[in-house]
């Protein structure tokens, strides 16, 4: 599971949503999140739900995948619902022991949970339809204008990509060290939770030392190939804004406007 992390949730596909420029998708998602938090009233939420449904249909994203994204936050959602129902002042509708469920509270709980559900479904659609490398490319471009303010856009994107590349390496390395120590009698599988946690500590030293060695080797390899940062770099894959991106932008601006207006 840990090894598949770098692909994240990305499902390769050929749909129009997949082919949109990552910048369009990032800006669209950010816009969606902002609108979701300034919205008032149920009609606005209906419009936002409509946008999510339209993107899911166009992107041919299986409903199963969207629901799977919700599973880990289920507890948080239940927590917000219960807390909002009993903590919001208003007219009491139902008595639950010492706690009052208020009408205001029910409305508040419904809005909060719908907001969280839409938020998670939509943000996960960004990563379902965009490969992480394209996302970091997009982030680099979008941060580009801030370079004058001292934001090292290229370096940030580079470090993100490197981090993704290191995760599988670290997992491999950890497995190797664990096997080496097990062959010499280390025990990782038995004993209380605390015992097992303690047996992990001798792994940290060798893991970090070999990881640092790999990082420094990669640095040397990059320097040997004259890596010198973002200035004047050419790309194998060039991001291009095309007609569908304009349509997507226009669609989002109109629907966001509608959501705020209704």
């Amino acid at each position, binding site marked *: 599971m*840990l090894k598949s*992390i*770098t692909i*994240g*949730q990305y499902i390769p596909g050929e749909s129009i949503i997949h082919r949109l420029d990552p910048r369009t998708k990032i800006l669209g*998602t950010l816009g969606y*999140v902002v609108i979701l938090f300034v919205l008032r009233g149920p009609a606005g939420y209906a419009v936002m739900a409509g946008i999510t449904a339209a993107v899911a249909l166009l992107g041919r994203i299986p409903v199963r995948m969207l629901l799977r*994204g919700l599973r*880990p*936050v289920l*507890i*948080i959602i239940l*927590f*917000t619902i219960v*807390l909002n129902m009993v*903590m919001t002042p208003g007219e009491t509708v139902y008595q639950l022991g010492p706690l009052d469920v208020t009408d205001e509270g029910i409305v508040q709980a419904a809005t909060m949970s719908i907001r*969280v559900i839409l*938020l*998670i479904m939509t*943000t*996960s659609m*960004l*990563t379902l339809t965009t490969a*992480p490398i394209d*996302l*970091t490319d997009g*982030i680099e471009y979008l941060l580009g204008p801030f370079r004058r303010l001292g934001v090292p856009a290229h*370096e*940030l994107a*580079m*470090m*993100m*990509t*490197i*981090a*993704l*590349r*290191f*995760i599988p*390496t*670290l*997992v491999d390395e*950890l497995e190797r060290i664990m096997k080496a120590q097990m062959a010499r009698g280390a025990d990782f599988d038995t004993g209380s939770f605390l015992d097992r*946690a303690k047996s992990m*500590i001798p792994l*940290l*030293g060798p893991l*970090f*030392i070999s*990881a*640092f060695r*790999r*990082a*420094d080797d*990669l*640095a040397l390899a*990059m*320097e040997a190939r004259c*890596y010198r*940062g973002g200035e004047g770099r050419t790309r194998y894959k060039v991001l291009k804004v095309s007609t569908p991106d304009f349509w997507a932008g226009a669609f989002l601006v109109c629907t966001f406007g509608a959501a705020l207006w209704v």
Partner: protein
Amino acid sequence: MNDVRTLLRIGLFVAVTAGLSFIRVPLPFSPVPVTGQTLGTMLAGLLLGARAGAVSQLIYVLLGFTGLPLFGGLGGAAILLGPAGGYLIGMILGAWVTGIISRGREGVPIMFISCLIGGALIVYIPGVWQLARVTGMDIRGAAAIGVLPYIPGDIVKSVAAVGAAAKIRTHLDLRDRG
């Protein structure tokens, strides 16, 4: 130390923190689990220093924000904006503070204290604030369920961080000199 090397070491610590986030113990009474993430924060502060350590945690949070499941199998804007999101923001500050306190000091006690302050205390400030704001609890209630249950874990993590960092520091010194 040259620039490309720092760049790669920062990338390495992003990966380390992400890996450690998979060590997690959920608590039934709280939306915030005990995780290994802050061990990454402590180690980043101790081994990379304040600036680079903070940058590594910032990139970790940014990557998780894009939806990669780096927060212990979860990810995305929702986690960052949710009840436990403040702790993630706190990790950026925490690595910086750990680095500031432990800079140029080799002693084990001072490293341990820098871990407790940077990797625990500082992380709690935005953590508890956001927990209270999102769930509608008052600050005192949020602190009760958002700090107290995690203190034993913080001590264990600080000990592990100092133990590992002391070993790795000597090793790196030898390498950097050679």
